[in-house]
């Protein structure tokens, strides 16, 4: 049962990241503007970081969906979600009015966006801790702590 729950978490989070990337690729310039609006990066770094964020979303999304390198992918995705949550929260706290930039479109960032990202973070962390679960391409990944146990 746990294996299927982890598989569902992995596929849902991976699918969401792939969807998010697919909405950004058609207008990367706009996404870069949205990244700049968070005021977390020097302006010169924004284009490269925006491109890298989309690329990592694609790679991590694919890995999560197929279940290969699921734990590293889930750790990366959790880290990204953590940065998104902090980025949006600091902007809202500072009164900066900005668009979310999450799934394309004109969605304004709000505390609801923070809650939604937290809701996505939970299954991502579950995969990062519990592993890929069932239906994974690389289902032989060792669970957390296995390496340590194996050496003792």
């Amino acid at each position, binding site marked *: 049962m746990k294996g299927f729950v982890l598989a569902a978490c992995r596929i849902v989070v991976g699918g969401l990241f792939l969807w998010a990337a697919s909405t950004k*690729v058609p207008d990367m310039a706009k996404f870069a503007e949205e990244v700049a609006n968070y005021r977390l990066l020097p302006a010169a770094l924004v284009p490269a970081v925006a491109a890298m964020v989309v690329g990592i979303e694609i790679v991590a999304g694919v890995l999560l969906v197929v279940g290969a390198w699921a734990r590293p992918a889930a750790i*990366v995705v959790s880290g990204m979600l953590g940065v998104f949550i902090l980025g949006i929260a600091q902007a809202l706290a500072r009164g900066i009015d900005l668009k979310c930039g999450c799934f394309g479109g004109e969605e304004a960032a709000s505390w609801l966006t923070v809650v939604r990202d937290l809701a996505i973070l939970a299954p991502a962390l579950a995969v990062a801790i519990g592993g890929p679960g069932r239906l994974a391409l690389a289902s032989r990944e060792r669970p957390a702590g296995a390496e340590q146990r194996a050496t003792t």
Partner: protein
Amino acid sequence: MKRTFLQIGLLCIAGAVVGLGANALSPRAVVLGKPVLPQAEAQPGTCATGGAAPSAFAAVPRITVEQAKPLCVACTAGFVDARNEEEFAEGHITNAVHLPPGDVPPPVLAQLKGYGTVVVYDADPQGTMAEAVAMGLREMGVKDVRVLQGSWTEWLAKGAPGSSGPCPVCGPAEAKQ
């Protein structure tokens, strides 16, 4: 654990490569190495207002002169001049429609809706008036509205196409000149 860190590193490198590739293939790629400033920077004091920032500002995407110039040359975008009449008469972007903040005449609105992209500019490099006009156009159903980054000053400085003369009807007749 060491293996996991190695995989994370490889994943990030692969992501960076894929991201740069996706950007290269994007119809609206971001120019790498060219700084991208926050839109709200055009509104001094936005950060200091502590939540009182007007939501209308910073909501309109920018377009650079380099991106807008080919659209002007190919007549594939509508251009809107939000400055005053005298400034418009002295010189404006070729085929631009004179449209200061306020009501939009229905023929002008219909004409602008016919363009894939509409670019609004004013005299202020921060684009304050242009933002207001752009927001109005978006509320009236013009889909892809952008504010010209650097505005008229930068357009002129970069030698992009311009013309001069009054705006007799503030609308379609002039846009077809």
